[in-house]
């Protein structure tokens, strides 16, 4: 026992000395680090948001189209969910791939539990969710999204972590919301909310962990579940927001996440319309809608909630617009370059990083002056994920 304790002390001390000695990896925190996905190369770049530069890259992560990332609660490790079903654990400090498992044929993202112990992937093929030990990536639970009487499996979307080792998600093909309690991963308790509306395409949990929203593609509206009152079931809000007008063809599915909420209001993409819908999260009634340049894909609040940044689906994906939430007016229109894929705010929102796939650049903007602060060359960049997500519900 005593020997072990002593070793445990000596080894980190030695490691630190060695690191300091060769200065390959200086001792540092991860609070200002993040990853940028190079979707075509199957790599991620480790970036430093204080220095505004790339520290290096980690390769061998497979097909990263539509990849997304969650962070361990110490914000040192990233869990990268690839389209090909690969789940990779990346160490930001050493810039290395720690572990990788193939967990499905076709995957669409994931989440991490409140206590940081379980990493959960949501899959299209085979449709369902799987939970893994965050330490070892060992499979802990497998919950097929079976529905109907013929044993069909639905594609799963909108996975979000809830307080208490629970996860909410939606079944695109079945039109259901499921809440899985993984307190004991060997015996998952699943509560199903059927008939929530046609074709939920993505979901979000509000930053307080209380409300789960699933956006609907097959009809105009959003399904809402109050997790403090689950016995009331899911209800529909923003019903018929298209006012009977034919929606435009959708060339890219919009995304929802906790960053849609700014203060008291949620800012949601209108599907098939050039509009952002504003909803009061106390009453869940529409309080306004803002005409924008194209069909919104990401509608993201700056951490202080004063601004909302919006990017758009093909063919308007060269633009970014900024909304001032105090006045409800657009205050800026930027052209970062064709193929704007994603945006990510620094932890307190003084800067935003924007990826432009077609121009192979990530542009850093000052969110007050809208001036470019830096440009990083990154081949076909897509998602940008900073470590502050580690500490937030629904990220």
């Amino acid at each position: 026992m005593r020997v072990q304790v002593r070793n445990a002390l000596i080894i980190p001390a030695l490691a630190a000395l060695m690191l300091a000695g060769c200065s390959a990896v200086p001792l540092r925190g991860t609070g200002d680090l993040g990853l940028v996905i190079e979707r075509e190369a199957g790599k991620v770049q480790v970036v430093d948001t204080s220095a505004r530069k790339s520290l290096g890259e980690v390769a061998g992560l497979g097909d990263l189209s539509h990849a997304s990332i969650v962070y361990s609660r110490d914000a040192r490790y990233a869990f990268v969910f690839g389209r090909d079903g690969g789940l990779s654990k990346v160490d930001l400090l050493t810039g290395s791939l720690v572990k990788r498992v193939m967990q499905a044929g076709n995957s669409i993202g994931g989440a991490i539990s409140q206590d940081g112990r379980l990493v959960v992937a949501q899959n299209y093929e085979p449709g369902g969710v799987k939970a893994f030990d965050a330490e070892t990536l060992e499979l802990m639970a497998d919950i097929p999204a079976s529905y109907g009487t013929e044993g069909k499996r639905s594609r799963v979307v909108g996975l979000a972590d809830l307080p208490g080792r629970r996860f909410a998600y939606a079944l695109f093909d079945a039109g259901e919301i499921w809440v899985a309690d993984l307190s004991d991963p060997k015996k998952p308790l699943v509560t199903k909310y059927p008939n929530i509306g046609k074709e939920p395409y993505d979901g979000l949990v509000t930053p307080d962990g209380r409300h789960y929203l699933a956006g609907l593609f097959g009809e105009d509206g959003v399904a809402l579940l109050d997790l403090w009152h689950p016995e009331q079931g899911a209800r529909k809000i923003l019903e018929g927001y298209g006012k009977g007008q034919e929606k435009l063809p959708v060339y890219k599915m919009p995304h929802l996440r906790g960053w849609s909420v700014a203060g008291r209001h949620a800012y949601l993409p209108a599907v098939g319309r050039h509009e952002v819908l504003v909803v009061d999260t106390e009453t869940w009634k529409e309080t306004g809608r803002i005409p924008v340049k194209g069909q919104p894909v990401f509608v993201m609040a700056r951490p202080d909630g004063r601004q909302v940044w919006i990017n758009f689906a093909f063919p308007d994906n060269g633009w970014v617009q900024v909304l001032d939430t105090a006045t409800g007016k657009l205050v800026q229109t930027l052209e970062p370059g064709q193929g704007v894929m994603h945006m990510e705010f620094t932890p307190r929102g003084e800067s935003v990083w924007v990826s432009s796939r077609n121009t192979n650049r990530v542009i850093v903007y000052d969110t007050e002056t809208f001036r470019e602060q830096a440009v990083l060359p990154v081949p076909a960049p897509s998602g940008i994920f900073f470590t502050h997500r580690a500490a937030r519900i629904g990220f």
Partner: protein
Amino acid sequence: MAWAMDGVRERELVRLVREDCGSCHGLTLKGGLGPPLLPETLQDKPEQYVVLTILHGHPGTPMPPWSPFMNETEAAWIASRLKAGFPDR
């Protein structure tokens, strides 16, 4: 059918398919929200069905019509390349 297309436009279309079709069908076209667009999954489907699907979409599903962004010759070029195995770039 005559291919009234130059190399520049071909490269544009390859990029469009990989990236913009790829957002639903996957960059590697192995499927996502939309089904896979691979030679083995398309082999039993007539080329004309693929062309019409691309131009007009499938109403009532997320598959959108692409006729605002390409003509029939270009859609036919994409359809034949999809059936043969789509180029990387």
